[in-house]
């Protein structure tokens, strides 16, 4: 089952006089439940690619299909819905809400989901807190947590809406390598137990090796595809 499909994607950034051509024709298919790394040097277009899949930006040309929907032609409010229902995000610098505790941070996306009642919400959040190993810290604020713990919260928050795809742009860049590997392992375990696709970008060869499949980006082109 295809989960993401990119067709002839181009993305230019307009800088007034000059144009940065960040992606120069990408074709990519990602199946349900895949665990994928997007690798490549700095400036190769990894973030740009993930943003397009994450419905945060529109391509200059080409089509983005997510779960059978052509999202690159949808309006803003439809994209909000897609992000809320189908996509989970994990960020490099965690992006947790400082005033909310662990429980509340994970719960946050569900607060605007009308189809999830409070009982179901509680069940999901509690289960996820246990799954990421933070049962003892659920009342703590992000500032009281270590980097690894914060990223665990972020992983749980990304999963709480039961998305089809989780996107993680350099999720380990702000962590030491041991903790980074732990986070990737956590993601991998969840990926194996659920039908959620994970797409993460990274520079780190040790992290890249954990992926089931690797897409190399170089200067806006998809170089090759490795299956480990």
């Amino acid at each position: 089952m295809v989960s993401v499909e990119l067709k002839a994607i181009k993305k230019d950034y307009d800088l007034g006089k000059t144009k940065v051509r960040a992606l120069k024709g990408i074709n990519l298919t990602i199946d349900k439940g895949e665990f994928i790394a997007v690798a490549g040097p700095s400036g190769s277009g990894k973030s740009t690619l993930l943003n397009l899949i994450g419905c945060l930006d529109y391509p200059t040309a080409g089509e983005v299909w997510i779960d059978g929907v052509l999202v690159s032609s949808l309006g803003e409010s439809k994209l909000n819905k897609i992000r809320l229902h189908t996509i989970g995000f994990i960020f490099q610098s965690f992006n947790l809400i400082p005033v909310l505790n662990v429980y509340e941070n994970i719960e946050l996306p569900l607060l605007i989901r009308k189809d999830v009642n409070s009982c179901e919400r509680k069940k999901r959040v509690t289960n996820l807190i246990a799954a990421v190993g933070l049962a003892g810290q659920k009342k703590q604020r992000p500032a009281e947590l270590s980097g690894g713990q914060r990223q665990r919260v972020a992983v749980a928050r990304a999963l709480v809406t039961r998305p089809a795809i989780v996107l993680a742009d350099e999720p380990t860049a702000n962590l030491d390598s041991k903790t980074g590997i732990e986070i990737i392992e956590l993601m991998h375990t969840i990926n194996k137990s659920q039908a959620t696709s994970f797409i993460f970008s990274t520079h780190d060869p040790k992290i890249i090796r954990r992926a089931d499949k690797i897409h190399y980006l170089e200067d806006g082109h998809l170089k090759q595809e490795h299956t480990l």
Partner: protein
Amino acid sequence: MKLFLFSLKNAIRSWWRTLILGLFIFFIGLMVTFMGSFSLTIRNQMEDAIINGLSGHIQIRSASAEDDDFAEHMKSRWKGASFLDADLQKRIQAVLKTHSGSLAAGACVRHGALFISDTDKAPCLIIGLDPRSTYYQNAFVLTQGRMLDAEQTHEIVITENLAENLKVKTGSVLGVLSQTSDQYPVDLAVTVVGIVKYRMLSLFGFSGVYTDIDTARELIGFYNNEVSDIIIYLHDKNMTEGMYNTLLEEFGDAGITTESIDLQPVSGQKIKLSTYKSMGNFFISTIGAMIAVFYLLIILLLLIVSILIFNLVYMMGIERYKEIGTLRALGFSKFTAMRIFMTEIFCVTGFFGGLGILLGTALNLYFSIQGMPSPAPAMDFIMGKRLVFQIDYSQIVLTMGLLFGFSFIASCIPAYKACSLRPVETLKET
């Protein structure tokens, strides 16, 4: 509910900013509430001063009387020669008698005259009335001497202003020069028995001279019991309009032609009815204008606070740049994100504004029971020794609405701006 708590937590986290904004809003809430009651009270006092000292609630004059506002007296000489003759007075009184339960009527003679002391002279309005009337006494703060004695004639009570101008004290004898309605000069000596400050009206330098009705008649040459006007006092100011209309109709039925109803004149004389609102219009509207200026200041203060709110929300937007981006990435719509911001501002407005209004109301309530002491004896003529506040509770709702309105207007633009940034931009890692 949980999103509301989220906003609340944000407000508490940036407590210093919340406090600054809150203090401003608190202050405005307090000011508007307090000054609302204060100005309501002052306005009412002004109306009472005019009613007690000059016009009563309703005034009946000859239709040929030209004065339409007491303030005209300050601009020019009083043209007071028109009168109601004894017969007309009887017919008017017959109509008024049917309402004796709800009104009190008194006769009054008014006339312009020149007052002369040993050193100075000043034109003034003479107001002659029944010295036993308690109404006119309420219009003053007596600073020297006593009020008029019903057994005596040729006594006058004058204002402090006039006493200063003429350089006289109680006991001084003044000469009065005037002209009767048929142009004969009258020269009379009167004794100052009391010096007063007009409540409120002294603000305008208004200087009526009070005397008994017979002395006033003598000065204008009303030898047949004529009066300038009949003044009607009601129990309740709010009944003025109703009684005014009733009387207009009843006078018409009694064959007394009122100016506003075009019936055939029966006695050859028409009468004119007016309320304190038209006779004291200049004074009332001047006080109204002063209050309006005050509210303008409040609005100005609100505008400043709006700019403050605008900046704070703008800063909030910059500070939470990434947070907004995160919310948007998680699937929050622009408007949901905005709502979180504005709820925060509304919480601050509601809490601190409510506190201000609460304190203001408590203060008003206290002053409505205890009275507010006059800050200086010189102010007594405006406020009395103790100003007993009147409270209009509908103002609480209005003030709250005002505060919320302004904070909404001031916060929605920067909140909208912050929330409609493209999430990719706000999420960029540096």
